[in-house]
């Protein structure tokens, strides 16, 4: 591990590096994923049930904490901070102090390099002292803040909508921007009404979620995420909990979003949508990205037998 802090791996909005995730020991659900999500991409994530699509999506905003690997949002590392990435943490350690006292090295950088190269901080049972713990705590607090800030810029839409049932539609949309002091209540309201107009649900502003149909709920949920003016939108099977006659209205909203150039990652079983709207398709199978490319290629010219049989089943 020799990366320096806050090095941006590339010009992606979200970068995934060596992502592994297991919920129970010994059973990896995600098995080493590398992926860059660039501005303007509309990615359809497809694959068999249990292949790890939802887990992958939820790792992108660290709603699920990766077991190994890194998630970068712009130039911020969202995954749990590694002490080796922070020289101020290393220099606070007892190990650093001991080496310094021994006088074997000339500069701090040499000592830091030595500690990193030999993985000295993780020597078993060693206590690195209070200053180290404090420094690490500070880094962890910064990390938590980075996560919250990143999530403000990453919208998420869930299969089951997850609207706030105790708020009316308007408050559902306004709540986060006002609570986070990103918009004044007046701005937030104006913004919310404009968004509602866009999806034709203006007259539902005062309704409570319990009074809406599934399709209306999901459109509101999309708009709630949009109210934060996100850079990316993540969708986890947004239409699979809907009655068939309501699927269209939700896909329509998503299609509009795509046309306006919103960066989107959509886990979906709607192959038609994946083919027509997405400009990149990822086939996630047994926790790895098995195929990744233009939808025309992935759907029209599958390379692997697994994708061929998957497509045969769903198309």
């Amino acid at each position: 591990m020799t990366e320096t802090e806050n090095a941006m791996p590339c010009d992606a909005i979200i970068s995934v590096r060596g992502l592994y995730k297991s919920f129970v020991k010994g059973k990896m659900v995600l098995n080493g994923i590398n992926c860059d999500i660039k501005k303007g991409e509309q990615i359809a994530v497809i694959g068999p049930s249990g292949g790890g699509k939802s887990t992958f999506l939820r790792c992108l905003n660290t709603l699920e904490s990766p077991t190994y690997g890194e998630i970068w949002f712009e130039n911020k590392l969202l995954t749990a901070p590694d002490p080796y990435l922070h020289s101020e943490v290393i220099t606070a350690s007892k190990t650093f102090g001991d080496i310094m006292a021994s006088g074997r090295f000339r500069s701090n950088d040499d000592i830091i390099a030595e500690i990193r190269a030999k993985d000295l901080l993780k020597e078993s049972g060693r206590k690195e002292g209070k200053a180290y713990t404090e420094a690490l705590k500070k880094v962890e607090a910064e990390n938590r803040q980075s996560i919250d800030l990143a999530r403000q810029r990453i919208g998420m839409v869930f299969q089951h909508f997850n609207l706030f049932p105790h708020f009316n539609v308007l408050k559902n949309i306004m709540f986060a921007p006002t609570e986070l002091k990103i918009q004044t209540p007046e701005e937030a309201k104006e913004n919310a009404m404009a968004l509602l107009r866009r999806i034709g649900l203006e007259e539902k502003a005062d309704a409570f979620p319990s009074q809406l149909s599934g399709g209306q709920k999901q459109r509101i949920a999309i708009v709630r995420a949009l109210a934060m003016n996100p850079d990316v939108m993540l969708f986890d099977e947004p239409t699979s909990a809907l009655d068939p006659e309501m699927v269209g209205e939700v896909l329509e909203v998503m299609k509009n979003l795509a046309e306006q150039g919103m960066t989107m990652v959509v886990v979906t079983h709607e192959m038609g949508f994946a083919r027509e709207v997405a400009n990149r398709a990822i086939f996630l199978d047994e926790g790895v990205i098995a195929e990744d490319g233009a939808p025309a290629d992935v759907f029209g010219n599958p390379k692997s037998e697994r994708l061929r049989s998957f497509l045969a089943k769903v198309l």
Partner: protein
Amino acid sequence: MNIINGISRFFVNGFKTTFIDENRYELFLKGIGNTILTALFATLVGIAIGALIAVIKTIHKQNGRKLRILNAIAEAYTTIIRGTPVVVQLLIMYNIIFRWSTHPVLVGIAAFGINSGAYVSEIIRAGINAVDIGQTEAGRSLGLSGSTTMSKIVIPQAVKNVLPAIGNEFISLLKETSIIGYLGVLDITKAAERIISRTANVYFPYISIALMYLAMVLVMNYFVKKLERRLAKSDRN
């Protein structure tokens, strides 16, 4: 004829000696006041303690590294309270912990409140757990902090879940506080005992206070049921 005469004399006399003579109804009114007062404030203390314990336990459960010491205290508290009789707790409070106190009603409120807190904490914890995890995820995915999500999204929904159960806790306390006479507080039960010690008539006072408790419980039950229906209606999602 004689029997009917006898019975009606028994009732008239009983009523007179129990309620009218020496203005004894005033004892009952005072007793009812103290019973309701103790139960009401004990419920409020119970809610405050219960909410605190529930939040500590919930946060600790979400992240085992947080609030380890507070959680241990909370566990010890619920174990002790739920593992000992409330009469014993009351006597310990009165005779040992609050020995110096000259306000038995306050001691009673504290004792019953502390007792109730252990049960209310479980009610509230269940109420928090009953809120769909998707609510927390939606809040966090918008960039809201854990504490904002908890206080503005989860707790308000949990409160709705637990209000009827809290109403039932108040009903339990109305009845449980009948032992507060141990501290010399004049509650409903103590009022009956005082009157019996003067009139030597046990039937009328005891049956009367049973009916008083029953009436209070039925009235409260009516309101709790009504509340339950109201909440169920507003909650269809």
